[in-house]
């Protein structure tokens, strides 16, 4: 199992622990805007980009659905496929919100993933840097920021 690659160093240890304890095949930690923070199990930046875009869209839709149903936003999603399962959930560390999406198979179970995800959340809370600004950015180079995080995870495209 390879180590996660991260755009922010402080999430590396908890993400690795989650990956190992919950026996996840792959996973991405991201901001709700879709900006990737860390990943494991992927070798292709384009795959992570798509996953981030889709995960952030699913999260946005689920929150709106929850709101429209006059309830609270939905924070967790689980899809069971024939061979693999997808787990998606929100993790809050202080005022900062993250999304996590992970894939597992028969080597794990939803119950196990939930248990260790709960521990992962607590670890993020504990490790959140004091000077970590909440990721609400002004209208500057938004797309640049999205892409720079991918560069941090995979290395800049075209540069070896």
């Amino acid at each position: 199992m390879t180590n996660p690659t991260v755009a922010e160093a402080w999430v590396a240890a908890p993400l690795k622990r989650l990956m190992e304890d919950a026996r996840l095949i792959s996973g991405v930690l991201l901001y709700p805007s879709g900006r990737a923070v860390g990943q494991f199990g992927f070798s292709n930046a384009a795959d992570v980009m798509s996953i981030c875009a889709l995960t952030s869209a699913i999260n946005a839709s689920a929150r709106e659905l929850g709101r429209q149903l006059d309830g609270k936003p939905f924070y967790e999603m689980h899809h069971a496929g024939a061979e693999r399962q997808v787990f998606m959930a929100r993790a809050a560390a202080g005022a900062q919100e993250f999304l996590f999406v992970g894939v597992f198979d028969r080597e794990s179970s939803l119950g196990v993933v939930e248990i260790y995800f709960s521990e992962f959340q607590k670890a993020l809370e504990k490790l959140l840097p004091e000077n970590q600004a909440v990721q609400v950015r002004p209208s500057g180079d938004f797309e640049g920021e999205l892409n720079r995080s991918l560069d941090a995870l995979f290395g800049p495209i075209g540069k070896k």
Partner: protein
Amino acid sequence: MSVVNYGTREITCKIVYYGPGRSGKTTNLQHVYSQLPEERKGKMVSLATETDRTLFFDFLPLDLGTISGFATRFQLYTVPGQVYYAATRKLVLQGVDGVVFVADSQARQMAENIESLQDLHANLADEGLDPRTIPLVMQYNKRDLPAGELSTLEELDETLNFRGVPHYAATAVNGGGVFETLRSIASLVLSRLSAPAARES
């Protein structure tokens, strides 16, 4: 794809506002929403980031009233413009009946306009739709910015409008050109529905 219910005599069509990031797609819908009377519109849903960048889509249902005996409804969508959100942009295009391409008139955004237009064509083709014939209207937005920063309308038209579809100058932030654009695409979509091939089906 338009939904035509002959039993209840209802037509529902889907229009997608497409274009590069921050070209004014959401602004178009916001203006439409702000100007229409309550009985003609539904709730506008915006799935966006905290800095109001569209994450998935904006959605605005419109009631156009009765046209040729059919209660006619339009569903307006926008897509996220950033290249990063390509996967979700594709999803929003599914079932589209007409497209408004909102171009950013700033000269420095021309490459983004072109890239977005190419992306649109590729996604339409993936959906099995012919990019050459789908109802399309071009909107050249942000005409209120200083002239020195803008491409001329002719430059924009020559570079982007190779199909020669209707095009409108716009300043969506104050509503200029917004309803003209919407009227135009609505007309194109409905005309297509009433074309002989559509009638036979």
